[in-house]
């Protein structure tokens, strides 16, 4: 019984360290405030009876659980211990995790799960599967009630991947995290395709290609810093607001809108610089930085209050909405709405990405998620149209029609069904064709259209834009909007739940 704190023992710990990983207990102690960790169920013993398992002692049954704080922010936490039977999940292992999850729900504090496990403990058979099921069920019920964070610090394969997938934020570390449903060996035998573990489900793959991961770090320490930063922006649970911070002005000398923002709507710029020009201390904490970079989502503060930013990124794919960027934005909007974090949307997009691959990948149902999540959201919604807002993209990006509370436009905003060239070519098709000089006529019609419609005033005339503002006034307007909507309460029809286009 003694020696439970030693996990799998010296040899196993040595092996763990050789792969550049910390032990489960070290991870918890590094992440939490010093002396804040209180461990539960250290003396739990495993329940395996078959295959001589009853003769084996597995300290804590391969998982460390407990409570603690991160910069004073309370959390329930568990960390799988790879040094004990490869962190495999048996009946009691799962029971310990389920217990700390129930605890988190009862206490209404966030849950952090550190995953480092070879998967199901095969010797325990169906009890191991039952264990996973109990965890998934709890993940689902906790979704939207308490923030759930998954940290992948080792293998997380097969059914085990579904717990992180059900949680709000997944953290991965280069060379350490591995996530997949079917491993490289099976793929090789069944399909004859050769792929390394890293290329199949390494940290980069999930951060950049699949979008399963939200934060990518190069070391465990960097990863823990990211977690600490994330929890500073989010509340303990869905009945609370994020803790306010001391107000800091943006670094406007470093981030000058006039220098960072080209008025020609066909020229690219990095929209993150505009966010930084406006938010407190120019500190923008980006979520899913590497995935679907044509939309930018993340947390920042305005006047000390935590807000979620969603912004089209003209620097990448002209800022279009597509399958991936729709998924990314919709999920982020739903997180912010669940946890009372106001949404600020910066609009600058030409529409949806054209292409057979997009249509066949289901851009219709994926794109619909953006409409759904914005319409559903009842937190304060503030929209700023920076330049182009064309077609369906204009509607989707938190327009008044989806019940934005404030829609502001910069003088450079162009709100229209499509860009001037496309529109002029359709509206004046015959006039252009029949003109003595069609090319000249075309150019003139485009110019006319630009002058009349490529501005915010047509939309403002119908009240779809509340105010046209000087870009330098944006922070003031947003601050005011947040203050005045502090008591906002909006009801939605009573229902069991909606049926979002998942």
């Amino acid at each position, binding site marked *: 019984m003694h020696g439970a704190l030693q996990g799998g023992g010296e040899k196993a710990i040595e092996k763990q360290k050789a792969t550049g990983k910390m032990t489960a207990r070290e991870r918890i102690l590094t992440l939490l405030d010093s002396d804040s960790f209180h461990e539960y169920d250290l003396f739990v013993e495993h329940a395996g009876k078959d295959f001589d398992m009853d003769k084996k002692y597995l300290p804590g049954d391969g998982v460390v659980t407990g409570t603690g704080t991160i910069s004073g922010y309370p959390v329930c936490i568990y960390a799988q211990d790879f040094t004990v039977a490869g962190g495999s999940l048996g009946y009691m292992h799962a029971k310990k995790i389920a217990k700390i999850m129930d605890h988190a729900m009862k206490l209404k504090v966030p849950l952090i799960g550190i995953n480092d496990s070879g998967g199901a403990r095969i010797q325990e058979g169906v009890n191991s599967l039952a264990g996973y099921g109990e965890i998934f069920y709890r993940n689902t019920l906790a979704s939207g009630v308490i923030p759930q964070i998954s940290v992948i610090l080792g293998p997380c394969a097969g059914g085990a991947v579904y717990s992180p997938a059900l949680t709000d934020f997944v953290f991965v570390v280069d060379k350490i995290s591995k996530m997949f449903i079917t491993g490289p060996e099976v793929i090789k035998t069944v399909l004859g395709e050769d792929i390394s573990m890293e290329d199949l489900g390494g940290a980069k793959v999930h951060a950049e290609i699949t979008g399963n991961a939200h934060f990518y770090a190069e070391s465990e320490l960097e990863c823990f810093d990211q977690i600490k930063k994330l929890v500073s922006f989010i509340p303990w649970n869905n009945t609370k607001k994020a803790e306010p911070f001391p107000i800091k002005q943006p670094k406007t000398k470093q981030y000058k809108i006039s220098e960072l923002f080209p008025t020609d709507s066909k020229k690219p710029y990095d929209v993150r610089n505009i966010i930084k020009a406006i938010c407190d201390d120019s500190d923008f904490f980006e979520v899913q930085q590497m995935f679907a970079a044509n939309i930018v989502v993340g947390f920042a503060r305005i006047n000390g209050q935590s807000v979620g930013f969603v912004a089209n990124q003209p620097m990448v794919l002209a800022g279009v909405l597509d399958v991936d960027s729709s998924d990314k934005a919709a999920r982020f909007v739903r997180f912010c709405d669940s946890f009372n974090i106001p949404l600020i949307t910066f609009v600058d997009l*030409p529409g949806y990405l054209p292409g057979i691959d997009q249509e066949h990948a289901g851009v219709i149902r994926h794109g619909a998620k953006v409409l759904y999540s914005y319409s559903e959201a009842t937190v304060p919604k503030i929209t700023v149209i920076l330049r182009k807002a064309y077609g369906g993209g204009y509607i989707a990006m938190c327009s008044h029609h989806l019940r934005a509370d404030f829609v502001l436009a910069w003088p450079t905003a162009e709100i229209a069904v499509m860009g001037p060239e496309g529109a002029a070519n359709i509206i004046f098709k015959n006039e252009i064709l029949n003109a003595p000089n069609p090319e000249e006529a075309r150019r003139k019609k485009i110019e006319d259209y630009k002058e009349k419609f490529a501005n915010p005033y047509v939309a403002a005339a119908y009240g779809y834009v509340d105010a046209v503002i000087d870009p330098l006034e944006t922070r003031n307007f947003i601050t005011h909007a947040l203050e005045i909507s502090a008591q906002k309460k909006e009801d939605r029809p009573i229902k069991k739940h909606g049926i979002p286009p998942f």
Partner: protein
Amino acid sequence: MSKKKKLVKPELYILNVLGEDYSTTLTNKYKNRKPYSPYTHKHITSFIPGTIKKVFVEKGDEVISGQKLLILEAMKMDNEIITNISGKIKKVFVKSGQMVSKNELLIEIS
């Protein structure tokens, strides 16, 4: 995260959306997207990776719809590959014993 990385000047491309040309960067995923090719019965491809066990036809053979062309062994199963159209074998790209990956062109019918 980005602090450690050097600033590289991004490569700009033109992306046309609804008649307008935009100057922007492209993602790897966008650059690596598969070009669309319409489905045709004239191209017999492997629906699964495996081994060609037997080829029943050769170049110049007349085949009729429903005729066996080859056997593709995959996951310990012999899959009889038949043609859905009648025509002439234009080319056979594989030999028996050959391993093939998924969606590889095996036989072309004209």
